[in-house]
Every structure is written in C-alpha cells, then in structure tokens.
C-alpha cells in the first residue's frame, strides 16, 4: 500500500461512509444488494438505516463499529473491512446479533416480506465458532489497485493473530461472480473450503449470483524458516 494511506480503527464519524461501503460490498460485482432485495428496501432507505445500526455497543458482527478497520487518505475514509472472532468465549452468534439489529431498525412490513421468501436461506453458510470472520471489504473506486484491500485484510489477520492466539482459521464468503475479489483473496492465501449453489430460478433476483464460496486461511501457524 502506498504511503499516502493509513489504516486505523473506525470511529463514529465513519458511519455514513460505512453505510456506503456495506451496500457496495453487498453488491460485489453486481447491481443487486441482497439486504435491499430480501427486505424490500431501496438503497437510499438502507443507507439511511445503516448508520443507526452500526454501533460500538453491538459487541460483535458485521454491524459493530469495533469490527471495522478504515483505510484513510488525506483525512478521509476510502476503504473498509469488517472482521470479528465468531462467538468468541461463547458470545452470542453474530447472526443472532444481526437479526436483532434488523428486527429493531427495519420496518415490520420489511421483516414480513423477507420471512415470506423461503429463498433467503438458500445460500446461507454458517459461520464457524472461534474463527476470524471477514466481511464487507470495500475500497472507493478511485483508490483501487493501490494495495489497500490487501493491506486492510493483512492488518485484520495480524491483529487477530496477536490478540487471539487460539484462533486458527479465517473465513470469508464471496459470490462466485466476483472474480476480482476472489483473485485478491487467493493471493492473500485464502483457499476454497465449501461451495453452495441454489437452483432456484428466482435466486438472482435477490442475490448477485446463484453460487457462493466459503474461503479459508489458516492463522497462527508456526513460522517456517522465519517466513509464514
């Protein structure tokens, strides 16, 4: 990453940027934001709701302010990634924290509409307990190809290895059509662990692709000849 960029923890002032980052990351390599499609919200509506949901008081998960690292350029956020250790020390699973947040902040009619769509669980991959979960990687378009995404993930891995020596694996989920992101993750040492495919004709109305990959990377492995 070039010197003009620094990586730091997210702060409350980053919330509007994180809302933009989450929606862009949800869409990946497509125009489809699954959170919007499943809950029948426009992107503008979701962008208004997200800053309220992203809070340091959410102890874990993809909507906790403390999960996010920010890449900054000239005092402004230009990149982000979320990372947390899933259900560490028997904490509540992040999926339940996310469900509680959505229940609390989204209009009830949105919840009912999502519940009526059995398709919502078609591409669900459970998050493994005690693994580093990587989510919502985003770099603003004009700052891409500068190594920012790689630096954000590397910093997340470095911090996790330092703070959680017992965590042996990182996991991330990515849609198969997002080849740029997959290439980046592979270059960072992530390998394929699992694939889920939906054969439901309607799946691409709600998700960017009908195929989702679970990638993994081993952490805290002993150094060999001083190199990892």
């Amino acid at each position, binding site marked *: 990453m070039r010197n003009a960029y620094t990586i730091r923890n997210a702060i409350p002032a980053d919330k509007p940027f994180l809302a933009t980052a989450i929606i862009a990351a949800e869409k990946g390599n497509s125009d489809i934001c699954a959170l919007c499609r499943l809950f029948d919200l426009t992107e503008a509506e979701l962008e208004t709701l997200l800053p309220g949901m992203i809070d340091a008081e959410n*102890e874990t998960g993809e909507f906790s302010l403390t999960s996010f690292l920010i890449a900054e350029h000239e005092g402004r956020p230009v990149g982000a990634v979320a990372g947390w250790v899933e259900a560490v020390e028997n904490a*509540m699973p992040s999926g*339940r924290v996310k*469900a*509680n947040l959505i229940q*609390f902040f989204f209009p009830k009619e949105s*919840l009912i509409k999502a*519940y009526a769509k059995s398709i919502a669980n078609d591409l669900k991959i459970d998050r493994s307990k005690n693994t580093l979960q990587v989510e919502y990687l985003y770099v603003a378009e004009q700052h891409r190809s500068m190594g920012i995404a790689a630096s954000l993930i590397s910093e997340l891995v470095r911090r996790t290895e330092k703070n959680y020596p017992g965590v042996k694996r990182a996991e991330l989920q990515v849609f198969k059509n997002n080849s740029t992101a997959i290439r980046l993750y592979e270059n960072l040492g992530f390998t394929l662990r699992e694939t889920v495919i939906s054969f439901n004709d309607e799946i691409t109305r709600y998700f960017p692709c009908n195929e989702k990959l679970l990638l993994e990377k081993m952490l805290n492995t002993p150094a060999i000849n001083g190199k990892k």
Partner: protein
Amino acid sequence: MEKNEIIERAKKVIAGVLKHEVKWEDSLTAADIDGWDSLSHMIIISEVEEEFGIKFKLKELNKLDRLGSLIDLIQSKVL
C-alpha cells in the same frame, strides 16, 4: 402478569410463526427449536412485542439465550 399466562401467550405467538407447537422448556434455545432461524426470530420478537404491548431494547435482545430468559424479560416489562 402470572408467569404461566405469559408462557401460554408466548407459546401461541411462537406456534403461529413457526406453524408448529413448541414443547416448552425454559432451558430451550433457538437452536433447539425447529424452524427458529434468523428470519423467524425477527418475526417472533416483533409478534411477542405486539402481543404484550412492549418494546425490547437492543441490549435486552442481545442477552436472550433461552426461552426462560424471554419469559423473564416479558414479565419484567408487563409487570
């Protein structure tokens, strides 16, 4: 409100969402109950709030781990 009455009303709400009766035990968690996933959880919580005319705080929701704790929380709110 008596605890038994809360349990009976909560059971009806949950059965209405999940479309099956839950054999009630205070120690049951969502993972023990067929169909109680993230999406049904949101609806169950919303319906429970409506049934009892209460609104849970986010912090309270994030502490709920068993059916028993849901009942205790409802009881603390309806008095």
